[in-house]
């Protein structure tokens, strides 16, 4: 009996199991490859659409605020171009707080008469250290790194530091 005849007899006896095995394999292979192709397209599209890395380099990110003695204790100075406030606390330490309200992103002004930050959008209030005095803000104002070099205060606006509350380790002392 030839191989072909034997196979035909097998197929006649059990048509479903043996005959489409190559066809089934090829089908699965095509579908598998199609899935890989779709995954690749999605990966490329998502990568393309991700927020771009900014072209501007680090030098522009560091703002030179001024000499240490230019800021009196318990005062807040606005730096609009850096989008932060430089707060000098009563004990002389410095904090650079972001001007972006942690509730929904409005710009928070410093109200000197009340000695606090009050957000115009939903009345969140923060104290001089950026801590929440009045909801609905869920956490304290974000911070930027403060460096003091040769008695000159510099603020690095490249990286913003989220925090839930104030802690004394966040303060930079001259």
């Amino acid at each position, binding site marked *: 009996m030839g191989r072909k005849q034997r196979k035909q007899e097998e197929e006649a006896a059990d048509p479903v199991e043996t005959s489409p095995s190559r066809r089934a394999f090829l089908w699965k292979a095509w579908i598998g490859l199609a899935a890989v192709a779709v995954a690749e397209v999605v990966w490329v599209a998502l990568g393309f659409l991700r927020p*771009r890395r900014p072209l501007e380099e680090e030098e522009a990110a560091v703002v030179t605020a001024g000499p240490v003695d230019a800021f009196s204790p318990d005062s807040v100075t606005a730096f609009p171009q850096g989008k932060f406030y430089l707060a000098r606390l009563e004990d002389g330490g410095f904090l650079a707080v972001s001007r972006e309200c942690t*509730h929904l992103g409005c*710009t928070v002004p410093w109200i000197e008469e009340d000695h606090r930050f009050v957000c*115009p*959008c*939903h009345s969140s209030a923060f104290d001089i250290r950026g801590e929440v005095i009045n909801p*609905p803000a869920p956490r304290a104002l974000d911070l930027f790194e403060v460096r003091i070099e040769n008695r000159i205060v510099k603020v690095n606006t490249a990286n913003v530091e989220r925090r839930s509350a104030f802690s004394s380790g966040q303060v930079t002392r001259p």
Partner: protein
Amino acid sequence: MPKDDRERKWVTFNHFILHFRPVRVPAKTLSYTHTFGLGGMSLVLVLLLVGTGVLLMFAYEPAPGDAYDSVLRLQENVTFGKFVRGVHHWSANLLIVVMVLHLFRVVFTGAFHPPRQFNWVIGLGLLACVLASNFTGYLLPWDQLSYWAITISTGMLGYVPWGGGWLQAAVRGGNEIGRATLITFYTLHTTVVPVLIFVLMGFHFWRVRRARGVVVPRAPGEAVDERPEKVLGLPFLFMKEFVVALILVASVFLFSALVAAPLGEAANAGMSPNPAKAPWYFMGFQELLLHFHPVFAVVLLPLAGAVGLAMIAYLGYGEDPSGIWFVSRRGRALARAAAGVALVLTPILVMADEWLLDLAGMAPGLPPILRDGVVPVGALGLAFWAGYRWVRTRKSATRAEAVQTAFVFFAVAFLVLTAIGVWFRGPGMALGWAG
């Protein structure tokens, strides 16, 4: 007029209008008060938006430094610039209203029962696309209103659990609203969403034709007419549609000529306006944010609403009341009652939360997610569930009647919240007449 079937087929094949309007329609569906032409009006408004939109693309410059000035130039120096922008702006706002009214009509005439279930879902997809289109378009003028409305609307995204920060940065194209945000929104608004709308519209219209047109109206208790009397679509249906379209276009043009589209001061990232409000169609959600924890107000409740809406068509009703306004006489009475209750209860709850309740004072140890989220939403949910069971058992309402009643209740409540957000929240989002 064609004499025999062969001639009829030839006329249908050759005639332009009969390619997209049905040859025959049930005579009963022609009445204006059956559908109010709302679906057709939506199509007309979309076409107006595309036409004016393309014209605007020749004048608008999608970069933060140039956008506002290009809109100013369009209004001052381009012939009919102010008018075209006006038609675009008012059509966009009117479209949301018309689509929501169309959604109400479909619910209340039961036009989501089989075989129209999936078309209901497609319609919801279209609503989502139109909201997306309005939202992305809102930013483009880059005035104070746009900039801050989009700042806080995307700020809400930050509260989505597990992916909120990434989602917000993805939508904004970075950490702040800037160049990347504008070009992203512009591309979505002029290309991606319109293409989606056209595809979904085609699908939506085909499904209507496949279901043999709109639902055939009937009185409560009347049996379904299997072979309703039909009249020719051309002229009877098409002429009515054409007249509605003409009146709509004329009204929009007249209004746009008389009332200019708003344009505030140029966007200033250093100064947030007080109050800063989302676009009016999102004010219901911003109002929710003032009462509930952000995860509930921004994610869970809207998600529940969307799922609930989609599920309306698939709940399994055991009866087919399609074509009957408000299902039955009992359905009408229940709907009236639900609307009244929601109309009164919603402002009362809002005022109570604003001036009477002090949950932070009553339960100081409770974490905010429980105090402002799980507890109040759970309590309200329980009350709603009890109300639903009461309507079903004590009022002997069928599932179709009860679901419709629930829909009316939530729809009216959300409309009231939107109205409060738009007209009754002033500086600092304090409750009071805002004008």
